[in-house]
């Protein structure tokens, strides 16, 4: 549970997941912002106006999944690094996960990485497909990782294999 240990429960997650139908239609955002905090940059970031305007900036973001095309601009604009983009149909067996990444070194394209879930547990391996770190992103890189479809909804972070000391 988020307030207990920072990991959302399945019930908490249910409230922020796009529907399975929408997931299968193509790239879409998942905004894992589940607490009312004063924050609104996501609304201003979206060129498609998929974030509903905030009446009170403490409201949780509400997303119109029909307007979202998974463009990923919002990822680097979220101060909480709570926005991810999922492409369920990336390939037959793989889904594509886009995550914000503010660590050094950055992974490289085609690099194999360890995939972690929301609790930091290893849940499989992934392949880096793209590393975006433009000036506009202001030092929050966006990493696209191809992962097995069945772990797409749980995968939320990566750990590099190279130079890793605690991999056993």
């Amino acid at each position, binding site marked *: 549970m988020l307030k207990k240990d920072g990991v959302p429960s399945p019930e908490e997650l249910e409230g922020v997941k796009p529907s399975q139908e929408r997931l299968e239609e193509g790239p879409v955002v998942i905004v894992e912002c589940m607490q009312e905090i004063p924050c609104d940059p996501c609304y201003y970031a979206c060129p498609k106006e998929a974030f509903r305007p905030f009446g009170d900036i403490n409201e949780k973001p509400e997303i119109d999944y029909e307007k979202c095309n998974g463009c990923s601009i919002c990822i680097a604009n979220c101060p909480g690094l709570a926005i991810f983009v999922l492409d369920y149909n990336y390939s037959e067996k793989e889904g594509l996960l886009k995550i914000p990444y503010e*660590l*050094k070194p950055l992974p490289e394209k085609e690099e194999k990485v360890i995939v972690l879930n929301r609790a930091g547990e290893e849940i499989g391996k992934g392949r880096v497909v793209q590393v975006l770190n433009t000036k506009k992103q202001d*030092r929050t*890189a966006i990493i696209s990782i191809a992962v097995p479809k069945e772990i797409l909804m749980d995968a939320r972070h990566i750990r590099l294999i190279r130079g890793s000391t605690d991999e056993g």
Partner: protein
Amino acid sequence: MRIKDHPILSFAEGKKVEFTFEGKILTGKEGEPIAAALHDAGIRVLRHSPRHNRPRGFFCAIGNCSSCLMVVDGKPNVKVCVTPLQEGMRVQYQKGKGDINAAN
């Protein structure tokens, strides 16, 4: 230990200067707090407390708490967390309250 590769920050190289700590020659960046250079060199104990002779180190980093008082160029009670490092400084442990008459 210096932080080299940082995703958000870049640290200026700075001018290297030599200073001594208990007679041993160390190097640091000119103008950084003496405490930062000592910390980089792995030195954690900066003085010993007057009554119970307990080791004291860096603590608040803003000149508030007096944990880091040392003897610098013979002068006691120098807050090394906010005192800029200069070439040739002589830095020593402080024992107890320090003796202002010992300053040269």
